């Protein structure tokens, strides 16, 4: 068991795959000579060379499409889009091509490609660089979406991603790279479609993922100070979505709040809340609550940005107003 940060957990997973499988290669913006915009691939170029650590021009649609094509020939590309904001430039390749080729070809083609990208706000990067689109991708049939919040999950989900035969959006939160956590020495994977119960409690269920799973835990700590015990569930993957674990918890707590960083309107939290109501309506004391980002382009100025993104105080406040806890 070693305590490492998420950045290193992902780097370890990538190195492991590069060493185990010669079909694996990395391609993206500034992953080589620059060492990665978030330093995940630091030193990779020296270890594996420019063929397998392939610096790409800033041409998201071009190199994501190239990843698809390489995957069609039997390679295992890991395509890095510097941030999920830039994935908008590759959306046609991701949604119209990567996600659909297996289906449209009736299983003749397969796109085993991992798209690593950085999601989330909180770094004062303003409206164009602070978004969280993983929920959009999770709604697309044919894609898988992983949203790790711990080093353990980052490595375990990355290993599982390499086993997938379908395109995976692997969304890493920009503010979580330095988060520490224990990672076992022995091999393990975190299967897709299995949420984690991060904290047990009987009074309310808080559902989150990525950085919001950590905000949910912080909110639970605050509630504990008031003598209320929240159960915290980290979804870990949005596609597949493990709604069973959520529903099981709600049947016990009878109250649920779903926390998400992106805009509240049309967010993935709405999907989760709706699923809870479909599966556990009779167990609910009241409507499932949602805490999401404000419906504004993320502002630059620090106090404005902080007011935009959900934090523990807002989660606790929502639980108080929705459930009187």
């Amino acid at each position, binding site marked *: 068991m070693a305590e490492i940060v998420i950045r290193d957990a992902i780097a370890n997973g990538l190195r492991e795959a590069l060493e185990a499988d010669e079909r694996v*290669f990395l391609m993206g913006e500034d992953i080589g000579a620059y060492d990665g915009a978030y330093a995940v691939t630091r030193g990779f170029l020296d270890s594996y060379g420019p*063929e397998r650590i392939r610096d*790409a*021009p800033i*041409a998201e*649609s*071009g*190199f*994501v*499409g*190239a*990843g*698809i*094509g*390489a*995957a*069609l*020939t*039997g*390679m295992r*590309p890991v395509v890095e889009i510097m941030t999920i904001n830039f994935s908008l430039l590759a959306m*046609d*390749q991701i949604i*119209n*091509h990567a996600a659909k*080729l*297996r*289906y*449209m*070809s*009736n*299983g*003749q*083609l*397969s796109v085993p490609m991992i798209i690593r990208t950085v999601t989330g706000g909180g770094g004062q990067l303003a409206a164009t660089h602070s978004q969280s689109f993983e929920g959009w991708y999770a709604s697309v*049939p*044919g894609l*898988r979406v992983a949203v790790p919040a711990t080093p353990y999950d980052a490595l375990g989900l990355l290993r599982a991603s390499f086993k*997938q*035969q*379908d395109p995976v959006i692997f969304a890493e939160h920009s503010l979580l790279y330095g988060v520490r956590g224990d990672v076992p020495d022995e091999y393990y994977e975190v299967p897709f*479609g299995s949420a984690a119960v991060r904290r047990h409690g009987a009074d309310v269920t808080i559902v989150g993922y990525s950085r919001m799973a950590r905000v949910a835990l912080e909110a639970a700590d605050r509630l504990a100070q008031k003598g209320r015990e929240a159960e915290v569930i980290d979804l870990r993957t949005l*596609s*597949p*979505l*493990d709604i069973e674990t959520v529903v099981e918890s709600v049947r016990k707590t009878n109250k649920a709040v779903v926390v998400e960083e992106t805009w509240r309107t049309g967010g993935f939290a709405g999907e989760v809340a709706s699923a809870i109501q479909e599966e556990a309506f009779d167990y609910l004391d009241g409507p499932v609550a949602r805490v999401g980002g404000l419906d504004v382009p993320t502002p630059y100025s620090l106090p404005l940005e902080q007011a935009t993104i959900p934090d523990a105080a807002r989660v606790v406040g929502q639980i108080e107003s929705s459930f009187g806890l």
Partner: protein
Amino acid sequence: MKAAVNLEKTEVAEFYRRMLLIRRFEEASARLYMQSLIGGFLHLYIGEEAVAVGAISLLEPQDYVITHYRDHGHALARGMDPKACMAELCGRATGASGGKGGSMHLFDASRHFMGGHAIVGGQLPIGVGIGLGIKMQGKNAAVMIFFGDGAVNEGEFHESMNLASLWKLPVVFFLENNLYGMGTHVDKTHAAGRDIYNSAEYYKIPAVQIDGMDLLEVREATTEALRRVRAGNGPVFIEAMTYRYRGHSMADPVKYRENSEVEEWRINDPIDRFKALALEEGLITTEEMEAIQKEVAEVIAEAIDYAKESPFPELEVIHNNVYAHRTSK
């Protein structure tokens, strides 16, 4: 018209047969569309047959082909079974993609025919990636990417040429310039005019413009292109000037061009020209051609019957192949 003297008689028969097969297939498709046996969009390749047949005839089995949504011609030129192709157009379970793709999304992975892509320009980066995969695995193969003049104003066209040239990938960029992106003439859409091959020069890609209505010229240019690509010298670019006689799709009333323009192009009909030359050079006889016409008619009739008689897919397959492993989640 290039001289056909270097052709074997068997090749001549095969090229004629294949171009005719595509034309008759497309004519049959149009009829089936009018009978509502084919739904959705139907884009016919009539008039452009020499491009697909000429270019693809020079590929080896290990090479790859990827194309746009006007894809029946390329699929058939690559050897897709006309029965599977027609059944796919009719949405039947026996279709090339089990009825899930339709006319615009034909695939035959066993022949390295990688689609059938219906978002304009979308196949270009994927084709480049196929080239990358070929190169990284050290395979002796090339990829031929077909696209139209409509695609060249997409950013992906430029991204793809840049990547392929930068990484010296074994890619043949094959532009089928039929002068119209849907109903808008290339002169109104491309700043550099219809000589689009010039754009490749900026990316340091050797490029030629050819008469796409001349099968032999297509073959000559493709031979040279493949020689360069297979030598590891990076991509090449061929612009074939061609023309579709029909509208963009069956839904197109064709109000944007004069009939006289169509008639002018018909004078250069690729099948008629090839036929005349082959007869003149004594590489085929009238009897042999008639036999081929008869055979093609039979193949088409068989494909139509097969499609009509094939069942629609069972509803239970609807969730199959969304993912590698079917899941309820």
